C-alpha cells in the first residue's frame, strides 16, 4: 500500500522538452514511451508543450521546404551522368592497379605546356582528359611558391600572425580537430610567440626562442605516430602552412613523381612517397592559391596502425600587426632567454632597402638599349619567349636583369648558358631545387601596369576542372569527332573499335589544342615585344637593332598565321558544313590579336577538352573558324 508512488507526484514530474521531442520522434524506449504517453493523458501542461513543439516542427519544415532547390535535372540525365562517371572511375581505378607508374608519365609536364602536348603519346580518352588540363608542373609551382614566400617574408616589416588549424581526417572523410596553433613572428627576431589550443579547449601560450622548437611543442600535443614524428624531426620540419617547410617534407620521399592539378582557384600538388617509406607516409599534399601562390593547406597522408589517416594543416587566418612596444617586448624577452648569443645584437635598420643592388626601371621611365634587343633575340632563339615566366628588366645602373621561374633545372642550365655570353646581363633563374637565398626577390613584370588584369597571367589559364569532373565530364566535340573518325577506323582495319576511335579523337584534339595554345603564346610574345619596344622606347636605338626587332615581330606573326591556317584546315576537314561567322574588321594591333588569340584558345578548350557544361558545339565552331581567319589575315 505505502510502496505505491503518490499518483499526484507522477503527474507533476513533467516531461523534459528533450523527451517530449523524443516521444514525438519515436525515439523513447518502450517503457519510457509508455510512461510519457500515460503522463500526457493526465497533464495539461505537457500536452500544451507537446503541441507547441509540434508547431515549431511544422514551421521549421515550412521554412525548409521553401529552401528547396530549383527543379532538378531529369532523372534519366542524372543517371546517365552517374553511369558515365562510374565507368570512367572504374577504368581509372583499373588503370591504376594495372600500371601504378603510368600516371606520372601522363601528368609529367616538360618545360613548356605547349610542347608537353606534343610529346605525349596518344592514350585513351580518359587519360586525355587528365592531361589536357594539366599545364602545371608540380616542381615549378612549388619553386614559385618558395620564391614568393621568401620575398614576402623579407618585405613584411610588421609582426605576422598566423593561425593554423590541425585536423585528423579518417578514411570516411570525417575530421577531428586536434589543435589550433597560432604563431606570431617578427622579422627582427628569431623568436616566436605561440599559442596552442588543444582538442579539449585548453590553450597553452609560450614564447619560443626559435621556430625550430615549434615542432616539439606541436608534436607533444597532437601525437603523430612514432615513425612520422621521427621523420619530421629528422627533416627539421617546422609545422605550418609554408612552401619552404613543405619542401623539407618531400626531400627524402624516395621517388620523383609529382602531380599538380588546378581546381578552381586552388592548385593542389601531390607528392607520393616510396611504398613502405619508414615514416609511414603515403603522400603529402600542398594546396595553394593559384594566383598568389600562397599555400593554404598541407596534408600528410600516413598509414598508422594499419589505418589511413590524414593530418591536415589549414591556414585559417593571417594578420599583419603593427609592431608595438608591447609586442616587441614579447620577442625581446625570448631572445634574452634562449636565443644564441649575438642572435639579436641589434634591431635591423628599418630604413635599409631590401635590395642594395640596382632597382628595375619601368618601361615608362627608361628607353630601350641595344643590350635589351640582344637579350630578346637570345631568348627568342631559345624559345624562351613563349609562355615561360621570364622577365627582362632595364636596371637603374644600366645593366639588364633577366629574372624567371622555370620548370626544370635542365632548362635553367640551358638558358644560363645561352645568356652567359651577353656582357652586362644579370641572370636570376629559379628552378626546382635552386637555393632561394635570403636576398631572393621577384620583381613585378615591367609591363604589369599596362595590361588589363585579365591578361596578366601569360600561360593558358585552365578552366576550373575538378578531379571528379574528369570522370564525369564530356568533350562537347566528342560525338562530332566520333562520327568523323569511326568510318575511317573501319577502313584502316581497326574494326572501328571504341578505343581505336578514341585514340584518333585524342590525337586530333591534341593537335588542335597544341596549335591553339601556341597561338596564344605567339600573340603573347608579340604583345610583350610591343610593350617593351614601344615607339617611344626605340627612338634612340640604332637602325640595326630596330631592324632586329622588326624581324622578331615578323617571325611571330608568320608562325601565328600558319597555325591559324592549319587549324582552319583541321576544322574544315571535320565539320565542313559549319559556315564561318561573318568577318569583322581586323584590328592588327598586338593587344587586340592577343585578345583574339585568348578568346580562340578558350573556345578551343571549351570544345576539345572535357567540360561539365557541354553546349551545342556547331555555333561555337562557326565563331572559331571566323576568328582563325582573322588571325591568319593578321600575319600575312
Amino acid at each position, binding site marked *: 500500500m505505502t510502496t505505491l508512488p503518490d499518483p499526484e507526484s507522477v503527474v507533476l514530474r513533467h516531461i523534459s522538452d528533450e523527451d517530449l521531442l523524443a516521444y514525438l520522434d519515436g525515439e523513447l524506449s518502450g517503457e519510457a514511451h509508455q510512461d510519457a504517453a500515460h503522463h500526457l493523458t493526465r497533464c495539461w501542461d505537457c500536452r500544451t508543450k507537446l503541441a507547441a513543439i509540434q508547431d515549431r*516542427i511544422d514551421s521549421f519544415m515550412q521554412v525548409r521546404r521553401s529552401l528547396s532547390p530549383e527543379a*532538378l535535372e531529369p532523372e534519366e540525365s542524372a543517371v546517365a551522368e552517374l553511369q558515365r562517371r*562510374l565507368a570512367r572511375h572504374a577504368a581509372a581505378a583499373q588503370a591504376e592497379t594495372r600500371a601504378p607508374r603510368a600516371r606520372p608519365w601522363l601528368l609529367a609536364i616538360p618545360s613548356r605546356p605547349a610542347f608537353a602536348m606534343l610529346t605525349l603519346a596518344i592514350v585513351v580518352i580518359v587519360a586525355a582528359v587528365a592531361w589536357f588540363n594539366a599545364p602545371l608542373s608540380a616542381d615549378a609551382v612549388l619553386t614559385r611558391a618558395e620564391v614568393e614566400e621568401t620575398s614576402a617574408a623579407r618585405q613584411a616589416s610588421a609582426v605576422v600572425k598566423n593561425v593554423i588549424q590541425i585536423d585528423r581526417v579518417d578514411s570516411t572523410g570525417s575530421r577531428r580537430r586536434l589543435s589550433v596553433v597560432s604563431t606570431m613572428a617578427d622579422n627582427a627576431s628569431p623568436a616566436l610567440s605561440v599559442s596552442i589550443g588543444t582538442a579539449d579547449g585548453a590553450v597553452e601560450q609560450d614564447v619560443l626562442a626559435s621556430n625550430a622548437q615549434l615542432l616539439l611543442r606541436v608534436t607533444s600535443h597532437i601525437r603523430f605516430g612514432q615513425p612520422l614524428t621521427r621523420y619530421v624531426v629528422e627533416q627539421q620540419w617546422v609545422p605550418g602552412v609554408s612552401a619552404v617547410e613543405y619542401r623539407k617534407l618531400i626531400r627524402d620521399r624516395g621517388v620523383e613523381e609529382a602531380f599538380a592539378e588546378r581546381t578552381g582557384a586552388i592548385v593542389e600538388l601531390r607528392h607520393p612517397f616510396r611504398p613502405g617509406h619508414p615514416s609511414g607516409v603515403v603522400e603529402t599534399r600542398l594546396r595553394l592559391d593559384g594566383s598568389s601562390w600562397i599555400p593554404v593547406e598541407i596534408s600528410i597522408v600516413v598509414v598508422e596502425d594499419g589505418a589511413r589517416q590524414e593530418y591536415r594543416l589549414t*591556414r585559417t587566418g593571417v594578420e599583419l600587426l603593427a609592431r608595438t612596444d608591447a609586442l616587441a617586448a614579447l620577442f625581446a624577452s625570448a631572445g634574452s632567454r634562449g636565443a644564441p648569443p649575438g642572435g639579436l645584437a641589434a634591431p635591423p635598420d628599418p630604413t635599409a632597402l631590401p635590395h642594395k643592388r640596382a632597382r628595375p626601371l619601368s618601361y615608362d621611365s627608361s628607353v630601350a638599349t641595344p643590350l635589351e634587343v640582344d637579350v630578346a633575340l637570345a631568348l627568342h632563339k631559345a624559345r624562351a619567349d613563349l609562355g615561360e615566366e621570364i622577365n627582362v628588366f632595364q636596371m637603374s645602373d644600366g645593366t639588364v636583369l633577366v629574372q624567371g621561374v622555370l620548370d626544370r633545372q635542365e632548362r635553367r642550365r640551358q638558358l644560363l648558358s645561352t645568356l652567359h655570353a651577353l656582357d652586362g646581363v644579370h641572370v636570376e633563374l629559379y628552378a626546382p631545387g635552386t637555393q632561394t637565398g635570403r636576398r631572393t626577390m621577384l620583381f613585378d613584370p615591367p609591363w604589369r601596369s599596362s595590361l588589363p588584369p585579365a591578361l596578366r597571367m601569360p600561360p593558358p589559364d585552365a578552366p576550373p576542372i575538378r578531379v571528379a569532373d574528369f570522370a564525369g565530364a564530356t568533350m562537347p566535340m566528342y560525338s562530332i569527332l566520333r562520327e568523323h573518325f569511326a568510318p575511317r577506323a573501319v577502313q584502316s582495319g581497326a574494326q572501328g573499335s571504341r578505343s581505336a576511335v578514341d585514340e584518333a579523337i585524342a590525337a586530333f584534339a591534341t593537335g588542335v589544342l597544341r596549335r591553339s595554345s601556341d597561338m596564344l603564346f605567339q600573340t603573347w610574345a608579340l604583345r610583350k615585344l610591343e610593350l617593351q619596344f614601344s615607339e617611344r622606347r626605340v627612338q634612340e636605338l640604332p637602325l640595326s637593332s630596330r631592324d632586329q626587332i622588326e624581324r622578331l615581330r615578323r617571325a611571330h606573326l608568320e608562325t601565328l598565321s600558319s597555325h591559324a591556317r592549319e587549324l582552319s584546315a583541321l576544322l574544315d576537314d571535320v565539320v565542313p558544313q559549319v559556315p564561318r561567322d561573318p568577318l569583322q574588321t581586323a584590328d592588327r594591333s598586338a593587344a587586340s590579336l592577343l585578345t583574339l588569340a585568348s578568346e580562340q584558345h578558350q573556345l578551343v578548350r571549351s570544345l576539345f577538352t572535357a567540360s561539365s557544361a557541354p553546349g551545342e558545339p556547331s555555333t561555337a565552331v562557326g565563331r572559331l573558324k571566323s576568328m582563325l581567319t582573322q588571325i591568319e589575315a593578321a600575319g600575312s
Partner: protein
Amino acid sequence: MSKDSALSLSWGSLAALRLDGRALRRTDQLDAVLVEVYVRLRPAVVAYVYRLVGSTRDAEDILQTAFLSLWDQLQRDAEIRNVRSWIYRVVHNLAMDQIRARDRREVTEAMWAARQDSAHRAASQSGEAALVLRSELAHAMSILSPRERECLLLRAEGLSYQEIADVLQTSAKAVSVHLTRGLRKFAHDHDDPA
C-alpha cells in the same frame, strides 16, 4: 547471410539498406544496384546538400562523388550496413570541405591584400561559421547554430537520432539536445510564445 542479403532492396526499409560489396561483385550487380540506390536517394539528398551549399549543381556533383566513393568501398569488398546514413555522412563531409575551401579562398585573398599594401587586415573565420545560408529565407535558419541546423535538417530527412549522430560524429544524446534547442530558437523567431 543468404545470397540475396546483399541485394535486399526492400525499399520499405530504405534506412536499413545494407550493401555487401563482395556479394554484389560476385553477382556482377554492383553498378545496377548503385544506380537504383542513387535514384531512390537523389531527391532527398540533393535537397539536403543544397540547403548546406546553396547550389543545386554542386549538390548533384557532391552526391555523385559520394557514389564514386561508395563504389570504391564496395569494390574493396566492404560491407556498408546503413547505406543511407553512410551517404549522408559522406555528402555532409564533402559539403563541409567545399564550404571550408570557400573560406580558405577568402583567407588567401585577405592575405594577398595584406601583402600588397602592408596594411593590417584580418580574416579569420572558422569553417563552421561559414555555414551561413545565402538566400533571404536563410535568415530564418541563420539564427540556428550550425550544429542545430545540421541536426534539424537531417532529422527532417527522416534520419534517426543515432543515424544523425553517426553522420555528425557525435552522440545520440547530443543530437537530442541540439534538436530541442534548435526548435526552441526557431519558435522564438516565429513569435511562438512557448
